[in-house]
């Protein structure tokens, strides 16, 4: 069932499939480096993964990170990035980059964003003048940034939106995809991923996936989810989306990064994920562990001389105690460094565990063990139970 497709700047090969769920382990080869999927991609919004050096990321074998086009397009801007030889060179990261289109952030960060057929109209944060981000412009900026995977500009609606707007956005997304593909200046070393929209409407989503599949692209993103909708609807839309996307191309579920969500969505057939949560929460003093979260700012850690996680193996856990981290968490840059390193390692460890168990065809057991550690009293979230049951995993 696995297949290799060499498509311009990306090749993808499924190495093993879970015989119970829709999970699979694959090898994704991009211009800068290979990527083992399912993969979690940490987010380095402004051309830096906050407090971490690229070398530290490489050391923990992180293979791909994100940059945000909206931010980078503003500062330092696409012209400067081109002059610098691209974002990879600018930030000294030699492995893979993925950029989003800039559309989502625009809509969520800018008050006066208005969406027209032409593009996203917004008020410039510099001087208040009206500007327009078109599909062509988004691709042009992303061509300058130089990421290995770039995203189409999509017409994003909030996941809780209902009514005709959702369908309008779905069709427009398809039309914008075609404009993006046409405008793409670097198909030989950058792959455009379309984004499946359709809100929480099964028919629209299915239609969208079918349309996008007709285009000559190397992978797909699933968008418009993970934005505050009911989790029971979230998982159904994710599963529906993967059901209608080709098996031999990667599926990127945008904005998902909570541990439970990652595990479940791998079971539902997703291959790539991104989320600011692990790195952001680190800067606020919260560490991720198999049993949940440790808010290291809490007084209860002042005399806890254990590492964050005895089994982690990151440089923070091999040397620092929770007690010491408590003294600096949330207010010293070194704390941001130390906890970010751990949280990224945690995410990478989790994905490694997922991949290993799929390879060994013991993924259902992995899921069970993972959920038991997180919910020792078996108070599993309802939506997760349902979602896993839909792919033949029954939680005990």
């Amino acid at each position: 069932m696995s297949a290799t497709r060499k498509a311009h700047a990306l090749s993808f090969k499924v190495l093993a499939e879970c015989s119970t769920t829709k999970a699979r382990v694959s090898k994704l080869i991009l211009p800068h480096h290979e990527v083992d999927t399912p993969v979690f991609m940490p987010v380095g919004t402004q051309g830096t993964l906050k407090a971490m050096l690229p070398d530290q990321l490489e050391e923990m074998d992180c293979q791909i990170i994100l940059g945000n086009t909206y931010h980078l397009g503003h500062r330092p801007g696409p012209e400067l990035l081109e002059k610098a030889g691209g974002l990879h060179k600018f930030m000294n990261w030699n492995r893979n980059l993925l950029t989003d289109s800039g559309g989502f952030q625009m809509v969520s960060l800018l008050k006066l964003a208005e969406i027209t057929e032409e593009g996203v109209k917004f008020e410039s944060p510099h001087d208040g003048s009206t500007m327009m981000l078109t599909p062509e412009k988004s691709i042009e900026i992303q061509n300058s940034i130089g990421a290995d995977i770039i995203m189409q500009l999509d017409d994003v609606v909030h996941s809780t939106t209902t009514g005709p707007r959702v369908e309008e956005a779905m069709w427009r997304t398809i039309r914008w995809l075609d404009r993006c593909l046409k405008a793409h200046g670097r198909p030989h070393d950058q792959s455009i991923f379309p984004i499946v929209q359709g809100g929480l409407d099964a028919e629209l989503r299915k239609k969208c996936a079918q349309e996008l599949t007709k285009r000559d692209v190397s992978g797909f993103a699933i968008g418009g989810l993970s934005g505050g909708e009911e989790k029971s609807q979230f998982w159904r839309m994710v599963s529906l989306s993967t059901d209608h996307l080709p098996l031999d191309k990667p599926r990127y579920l945008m904005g998902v990064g909570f541990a439970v969500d990652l595990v479940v969505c791998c079971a539902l057939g997703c291959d790539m994920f991104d989320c600011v949560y692990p790195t952001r929460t680190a800067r606020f003093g919260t560490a991720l562990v198999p049993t949940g979260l440790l808010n290291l700012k809490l007084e209860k850690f002042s005399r806890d001389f254990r590492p964050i996680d005895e089994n982690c193996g990151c440089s923070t856990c091999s040397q620092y105690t929770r007690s010491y981290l408590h003294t600096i968490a949330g207010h010293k840059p070194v704390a941001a460094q130390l906890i970010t390193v751990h949280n990224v390692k945690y995410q990478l460890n989790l994905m490694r565990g997922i991949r290993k168990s799929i390879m060994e065809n013991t993924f259902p057991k992995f899921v069970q063990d993972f959920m038991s550690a997180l919910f020792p009293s078996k108070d599993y979230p309802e939506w997760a139970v349902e979602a896993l049951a839909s792919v033949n995993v029954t939680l005990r």
Partner: protein
Amino acid sequence: MKFAVQATSSTSSARAGVLTELGRLADREIHTPACLLYSTSGSAPYLTHSLLAQYMKGAPLVAHLPVGFAAEHQESLEAFGKGMGKYAVMENRLIFSTFHDSAEGFPTGFNDKNGASVWSRGGKIKLDVERFIKLQEAIRPDWYQPLCDSDTDRNSSKKRLQKAVDRTLHFLDSCIEKHSASQVLKSSAIFGVIEGGYDVNERIRSAKQTCLRPVEGFILEGFHRFGPEMEQFQIMDIEAVLKDTTAVLPDHKVRYLPGMWSPGAIIKAVQCGIDLFDSTYPYLLTERGCALVFPFKVSPGLTDENIWNNEASYHIDLNDKRYFDDFTPLLKGCECYTCQNYTKAYLNHLCNTGELLRGVLLMIHNFHHFFSFFETLRKSTEENKLETFRKLVERTEVTKPS
């Protein structure tokens, strides 16, 4: 510890020396003049243990840790039971527990005959001798500064200066008494603190009295209250007092002058007989988004004339728009990790966006530059070439932007 002078100057009180028999790190040596690694809240600013080990191999062997942090977390440290070095993952370095945080100023008026105050994140902590020694027992320092009253400056009255000298001696005696009775502090070296403001008589009195006590080195304080205001401090105002003070101190013990001294001031202080300095100055510059670039390599052909014709600058401000598209490293030829891998343009971007990585990369460069400066300073002192060296460094300080 043992300190031996290896070279002296014919024209100043400068000396090059070496510290050995360093207790816990007995196989190591420290060549002076030297600086110590600034470690606020137990860690070097922006640099974790791994980053220090990987990118700052030449970093100083001794870390100076202001005691306020330990005071705030005394109970945790006591429960931990293995000392601050291990707690803060600094045990590969000698831990020097100092009193005030020399990167921060401290307010006046919070010391009295019973104790002195330090500040931490939670606010003021007043330490009396008993609590202070108990605190040091939790810290387990390799070196420590005893309780002292350094709350004086150029404007302090004679009466106030006398109080500072007397109290500091009294605190020292009480600390020594408790220190001698302490098992835990057996292998910790206690320093003596010399007070007296700008008053040469009080300074000499303080120095002579302190010498009579069994201290292993001297700390000169009480000229100012630390903090970034020290940038405006004119070391020439205290040169005479410094010289007169060090003149009555024994040669075979080190002298430490904490504070955010600029490199030019450091050289002058070395010429007044000082051996050790802290590294808060590169930290100050890092916080501002600046990178040190002043030249300090004394090449054989360097004369007074070509020093003055040298157009090199002192530091650059990475916030400046002119670096927006400058793809050269911070300092051409610098071998630090930052200069080998990043450009001014990238640092400018990090400054504009307020990103944390700015601090990491600048601290690596600034520490590297500062520590390299000290290497050359040591060499110049050993080779009796301090004057030329001083002129080179001062030349660029004159041209530095205010």
